[in-house]
């Protein structure tokens, strides 16, 4: 099939369209605005809904409304504006509504800047909304993965009746790569038994998280957590290279996954045995595989464009079986392969010094 040279943002927009996105609602913010611009051209022509909302608070709530009718709803935003959506995301988990959110990270906190960054790992994975809930988070590292994971996000949202986040960043969103547009590879999920369509010839349906009976409320929450457990069993994705003989395993998500791969290749040429491990699903996190890898490899370095967010999940997964170090920078110029390799060498050097 023919490959197209396209940016990550536009690739996501086209993939969402191809996945059958019925309704897109959003508000502009750099560096994700191109998604909305792209969809504003093709959605109305196809008779699908496109609304420039008055705020991100409105756009996520429009998604809730559309999703309640069974429509495939999506919004996209960045960092300080994804912060405004946390209330809506919490409701969407409680109301069990399938929504896709494309989060294209920039630097924070506050207004921060439009530099690419990975500083919203915590925002996406642990969330800022109220209550006990989880949202699957998919982290692409290439434009091709932007396409593939957007299709997957629509599928997972429908399968689990839960919001799903595709966590991209300003670098991936704005850089061009050749990529192939695929047909939606997932089955359609039957939603006819829960959507709101008017109570014609059936009992009325009520979509709500409100439950004043304590026992029923706990049962409802248990149902949410049964879904999260199923996600942990069935949806974990990661990429793993050269871990068999690795003295050090580099761990990174998203765009930084490319840089650890370059550091591995550079290191291997110099005889340093480096492997890489890249979680693609940040929730559910590939904790079992990391725990296994720590049997053999005793040194892990987590490289992130933030001051240490995913590293906490890596430490929890490895549970003290191996040493876990972090290398990071909050925003701007990304850690390159030589900086990462220097960190590897210094860790190995420390090890030698300690064993003498």
């Amino acid at each position, binding site marked *: 099939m023919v490959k197209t040279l396209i940016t990550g943002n536009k690739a996501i927009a086209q993939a969402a369209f191809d996945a059958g996105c019925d309704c897109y609602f959003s508000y502009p913010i750099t560096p994700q605005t191109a998604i909305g611009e792209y969809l504003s051209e093709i959605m109305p022509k196809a008779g699908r809904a496109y609304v420039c909302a*008055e705020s991100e608070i409105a756009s996520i*709530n*429009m998604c809730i*409304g559309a999703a309640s009718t069974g429509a495939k709803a999506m919004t996209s935003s960045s960092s300080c504006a994804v912060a405004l959506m946390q209330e809506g995301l919490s409701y969407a988990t409680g109301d069990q509504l399938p929504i896709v959110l494309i989060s294209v990270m920039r630097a924070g906190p506050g207004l921060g800047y439009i530099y690419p960054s990975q500083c919203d790992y915590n925002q996406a994975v642990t969330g800022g909304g109220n209550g006990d809930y989880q949202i699957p988070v998919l982290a692409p590292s290439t434009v091709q993965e932007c396409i593939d994971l957007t299709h997957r996000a629509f599928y997972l949202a429908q399968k689990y009746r839960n919001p799903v986040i595709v966590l991209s960043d300003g670098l991936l969103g704005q850089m061009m790569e050749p990529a192939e547009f695929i047909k939606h590879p997932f089955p359609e999920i039957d939603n006819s038994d829960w959507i709101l369509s008017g109570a014609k010839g059936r009992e009325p349906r009520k*979509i*709500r998280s409100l439950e004043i009976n304590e026992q029923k409320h706990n049962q409802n929450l248990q149902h949410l957590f049964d879904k999260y457990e199923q996600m942990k069993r069935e949806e974990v994705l990661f990429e793993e290279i050269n871990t068999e003989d690795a003295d050090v395993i580099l761990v990174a998500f998203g765009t930084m996954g490319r840089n650890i791969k370059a550091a591995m290749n550079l290191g291997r040429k110099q005889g340093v045995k480096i492997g890489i491990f890249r979680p693609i699903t940040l929730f559910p996190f590939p904790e079992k595989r990391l725990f296994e890898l720590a049997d053999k490899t005793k040194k892990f370095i987590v490289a992130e464009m933030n001051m240490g967010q995913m590293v906490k999940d890596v430490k929890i997964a490895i549970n003290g079986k191996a040493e876990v170090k972090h290398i990071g920078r909050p925003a701007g110029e990304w850690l390159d392969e030589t900086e990462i390799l220097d960190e590897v060498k210094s860790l190995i050097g420390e090890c030698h010094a300690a064993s003498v």
Partner: protein
Amino acid sequence: MQQVFKIPDCIKKDAKFTFCPGCDHGVALRLLGDAIDELGVREDTIAALCVGCSVFLYDFFDIDCLECPHGRATAEATGIKRARPDKFVFTYQGDGDFAAIGFAESMYTATRGEKVTSICINNTTYGMTGGQMGPTTILGQVTTTTPYGRSAELNGYPLKIAEHIALCDGTAFSARVSLDSVPNILKAKQAIKKACEVQVKGLGFGFVEILSGCPTNWKMTPQEAHKHIKEKMIPVFPLGVFKDVTAG
């Protein structure tokens, strides 16, 4: 014998309202139910419900309902209507929900001319949380957060909701009505039906603000509450139709 009174079909026959004695919410719900029945849209209706005294409407209505975060119901209604333009969509909100925390969503739903209907109960207080100052609390009114009475200097002025909504180009109908007396209830019924009809006809946003008594938080009897609406509220919030695109 001719039947002159019945519970609207879209309200559950076994519904036990959770409103306080003397509250006007029940009357407002009944009028809305009548309008939905008379337009014959019950089986095509999706309601976007709010947070506040009307938070339990799910249990009263025999129609499909969606829970919305506080103030966001008109955004949800927008999403529902854009996804299913063939459905009848309404929100039922209080003044705090519609015009304080959700004022941006409300104004833009009107401005976009979304073909949905919003009913806003204005009882000049946050009823569910026990009677705090809200966006429409009138000057001098004592609430739990204005113990010395609402002061313009400290708290600003009450918001004229229906007039604001009427200013929006996308609004097809905006009116303020009152439930303090039978003649006013009959006018309220007409206004609510009109706000629903403009949606069915695809003309734009339909809106009714309803002046409604809250005897519990006002610390009055129901009769005193209705007298309060007539003597204190209507002079601040004049009744009338502020916009009607169908008017000749």
